[in-house]
């Protein structure tokens, strides 16, 4: 997979990279793009609801902002994970660790899924609002967006836990788990909003 923004790839090439054995995107990248899909759906629902929802323009602007925030994280998290794996391999082969380099790389590998989890939670919240206030025709899309974002948040929280080495008292892990819970609540609200 080429480095850089996955937006430059065809969807088929991204899926090929995801299923292949070569270094590249994994679960956290997929979670980031799932969150981006959800944000795009919220943008669509908000734009289509401009006639009946006074704050639809503001919701669309926020959804676009969250989408732009989360898309680059898909590639960054894959690169960070690769770097952390490389450092772990070096350490286990007896390579000398340079000034906490391994710790830094592991922290980065956990920090990015946390950012994805927090963005996904915000997307889920916004999707729930869209499901409640958006045009009736599109509320099911908003509910779908909330569920997708909640899945992305939960998956990302899992990566934070794994990449931190499961320190249960860690502040990052706590934030990631809260984000996953917030997103799950938002998804429930969105599904209950009705057609």
């Amino acid at each position: 997979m080429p480095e850089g923004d996955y937006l430059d790839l065809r969807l088929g090439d991204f899926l090929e990279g995801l299923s292949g054995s070569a270094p590249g995107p994994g679960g956290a990248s997929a979670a980031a793009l799932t969150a981006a899909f959800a944000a795009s759906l919220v943008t669509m629902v908000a734009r289509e609801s401009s006639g009946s929802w006074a704050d639809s323009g503001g919701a669309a602007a926020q959804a676009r902002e969250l989408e732009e925030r989360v898309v680059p994280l898909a590639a960054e998290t894959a690169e960070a994970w690769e770097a952390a794996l490389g450092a772990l391999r070096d350490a286990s082969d007896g390579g000398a660790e340079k000034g906490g380099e391994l710790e830094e790389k592991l922290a980065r590998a956990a920090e990015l899924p946390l950012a994805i989890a927090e963005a996904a939670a915000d997307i889920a919240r916004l999707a729930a609002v869209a499901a409640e206030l958006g045009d009736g025709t599109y509320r099911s899309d908003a509910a779908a967006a909330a569920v997708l974002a909640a899945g992305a948040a939960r998956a990302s929280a899992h990566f934070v836990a794994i990449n931190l080495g499961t320190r249960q008292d860690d502040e990052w892990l706590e934030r990631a788990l809260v984000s996953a819970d917030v997103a799950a609540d938002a998804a429930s609200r969105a599904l209950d909003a009705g057609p």
Partner: protein
Amino acid sequence: MSAVATQQTDAELVHRCREGDAEAWNALVERFSRYVYAICVQGFRLREQDAEDVFQDVFTRVYERLGTLRNDDAVRPWIAQLTRRLCLDKLSSGSREEPVGEPRANEEAMMADIDEAFAVREALTELSEPCQEVLDRFFARDESYRTIGAALDLPPGTIASRISRCLRKLRSQLEGRNEA
């Protein structure tokens, strides 16, 4: 930002500059410095030193030629035109430094984008402090609803609707400006 810079119209500021008011000169430079710099760096992709050179040239010429400006309300497009010309001169003269990237091909569209960005920035300053704060945190600092809520002591669940309300006010400000 000084009181002169925030309260006076462009034309009033130009009028005071012509009368030799030093404070008004400072305010004029303050008002347009980011604008000139944005054209140099974002539009023409000049590197820092070349952008500094153009910046100095622009305000030297504004100082020397302000008396020739026929319409005081048109100071912004006049400064923009001056800056564009000096940027092109800098590029064609074989400047000391290579540009950071290719200058944007469509100069009109580039200027429209920069003008729009500055109009939004100015309209923002006319919103209430809480609105400026919440919009800045979300759109400029990329903060999450949770972080914004914690910083402003607000429930995170209300942040999205606050942002939407503030954006609606910002839009009203911008539409008011366009109508004026």
